[in-house]
């Protein structure tokens, strides 16, 4: 698939493209098209959340107090900062300083790891201890407030489905960033242009955007 065999002036261009600019925009539009599918995918989950929240607002308000807004806030800060670090990595790739790209990506990885540690260690595992996990042990609701246990279970089903899918995206992001770092480290010809980093960056910022909406919806519910 190397472009060199096809006699292009620029060795970065694949054989099906005319020039680098066309190739770059194709990749960016392609990535955005993929993000459109991600938007619709999370959108359907947000729809489910909206419908149940409209029906059970009073109960959901009581249940949401089991989630600590400070932990969620900490995670928001971590993710916002990781997004910034990612943007910096793209910047340094654009100005062709691969060493700095690599270092900023390490920072992104650390933030992602911190996010997962906070999420799983401070939230999910304690939830399991409080019998608030529908998938582990028996689900029980001990916190009164006139909340029927099945509504609490619905709330936590939604919570784990949405944050779980988001967490899965974080994990996938870490794997992809790791692969990118490895390629940058090996000076792989694929990452000579900055577009791969930019694409991974777009994905990572999207993960951040999802959390921007999840945070107020789950942790800062109004009465």
């Amino acid at each position, binding site marked *: 698939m190397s472009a060199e065999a096809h006699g292009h002036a620029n060795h970065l261009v694949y054989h099906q493209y005319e020039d680098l600019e066309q190739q770059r925009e194709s990749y960016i*539009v*392609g990535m955005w098209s993929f993000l459109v599918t991600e938007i619709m995918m*999370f959108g*359907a989950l947000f729809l489910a959340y909206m419908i149940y929240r409209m029906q059970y607002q009073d109960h959901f308000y009581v249940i949401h107090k089991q989630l600590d807004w400070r932990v969620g806030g900490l995670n928001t800060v971590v993710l916002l900062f990781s997004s910034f670090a990612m943007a910096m990595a793209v910047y340094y790739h654009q100005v062709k300083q691969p060493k700095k790209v690599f270092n900023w990506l390490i920072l992104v990885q650390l933030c992602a790891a911190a996010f997962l540690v906070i999420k799983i260690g401070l939230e999910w595992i304690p939830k399991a201890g409080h019998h608030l996990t529908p998938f582990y042990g028996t689900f029980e609701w001990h916190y009164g407030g006139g909340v029927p246990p099945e509504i609490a279970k*619905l709330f936590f089903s939604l919570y784990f489905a949405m944050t779980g899918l988001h967490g899965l995206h974080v994990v996938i992001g870490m794997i992809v960033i790791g692969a990118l770092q490895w390629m940058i480290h090996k000076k792989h010809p694929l990452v000579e242009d900055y577009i791969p980093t930019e694409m991974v960056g777009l994905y990572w910022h999207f993960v951040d955007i999802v959390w921007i909406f999840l945070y107020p919806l789950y942790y800062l519910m109004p009465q």
Partner: protein
Amino acid sequence: MSATVAKPDQTEGLYDPKEPLNYINVQHTLKSWLLTGDHKRIAILYLIGITFFFFLGSIAAAMVRLELTSPHGVMLENDTYNKMFSAHGIIMIFLFLIPSIPATLGNFLVPIMIGARDLAFPRLNLMSWYLYMIAGAMILCAFFMGGVEAGWTFYTPYSSLAKSQVTLTLVGVFIGGFSSIFTGLNFIVTIHKMRAPGMGWFKMPLFIWAHYATSVIIMLGTPVVAITLLLVVLERAFNIGIFSPDNGGDPVLFQHMFWFYSHPAVYIMVLPGMGVVSELIANGSGKKIFGYDFVAYSSLAIAAIGFLVWGHHMFVAGQSMYQGVIFSLLSFVVAVPSAIKVFNWTATIYKGQVKLNTPMVYALGFMGLFVIGGLTGLYLSSMGTDVHLTATYFVVAHFHYVMVGGTVTAFLGGLHFWWPKMFGRMYPDTLGIVSAIMVFFGFNFTFFPQFIVGWMGMPRRYHYYYFAPEFQPYHLASSMGASFLAIGFALPACYLTWSIFKGRKVGPNPWGAKGLEWTTQSPPITTNFETMPTDIPEAYDFDSGIDDSEYDEIFGKPKESK
């Protein structure tokens, strides 16, 4: 009689060293096929895959039809019957109809028609095929491990409680969804960014417009059903119940989210078929298509309005009546762009020089069957009638008219039309016309009785109808028609395969058709064109009087010119 004069056809063979280099003979190893980035080779891989799954789905359909010949059933247990119709639906919809035209004809033709060397992302394209095969393998595994009886719609709460292999099937469908997302994504970027210089949006063939609209639907719809089915998997595997009434959930929400994709999915299936038929009608009539802009925009209109009508599947499912009225109205509206297309095709044929060869016979069959399928759709989109007709054989007949009469007919027509381009060889045209007519009549024999028996009240998905033995003649007629239909499908499979090896060799443009794909050699070289096409004519430019075809050599000259 010297031995030095070799007969020309003795040297004809697939691996003729004198044959010019093309995408098929450029490399011969299995690895070169399985790791290819060439969109044409991937199209062939897809063609093999979907033919296989079409065959499997047909066997399941045959079992269902056989079972219904008697009011008391013939040979299947109740559960087995449920598994059979579920297998038929799941295989035919997710593994045949949705990838059928886009992944084979679309993959092959989209880059050639717009003058590109390949799709924008060749490796993604290959990955899409692998995901499709993995999805197919998983779904097949599920059938061999006990099958699924939840139907292709997987309605909750049944699908979340059923003891059969629903989880594995759903994961398979989920992966298959990614396969079609990647195909759609590739088409969108390719059509936006890879058009040859001078190939403006309104110079593109209507096939491309249809595929663009299809890709947009795939991008916007598929992720919604993916997450919906994933939630059912979570409900089954991890007890995370979002649709489960035990948890205060609402099963009707599943239907909303499911049909948000699955109604537009109908347009994913039929829009490429419309694109194919636009090509066949224009080229078969030797005329510029009537109202090009209208046909192009109607594809986008179908894609857009198609997203706003999903509620007509839920008129009796507990959906609000007011919402139902709106959905009913919008469902009538979506019939308008489809009707525009049919009118324009008809107007194109009018005073055209119609060449009645195999592709054109299929195209004419498509128009007839699609009109019946579309108009009966209006019966179902008006709420009052739908209450009577919901979940009867009327619905079954309606969507088979659109899916088989529409998509499969268009697929076969397109396959026959572009076959000489794909393999550089022609099949026997008379045999093609015979099988096209068999498909048309066999299809009508199969599904027209179902309209009547459905109107009389035969419910779909029923194993027995001993409560109404008077339905038997209709079911018998239907099953007999299905046998004709099967022969109509088997014939092309035989003579097309034969023609790959033994068919008459043809040049670049056997039909006298217009379009960039007919200017390059058959079969095309790996990069499609020797040099990038730059001087792009208008679409269907028959008025220019340039005829570079070899139509007369192949099919004989028209009578009056003799």
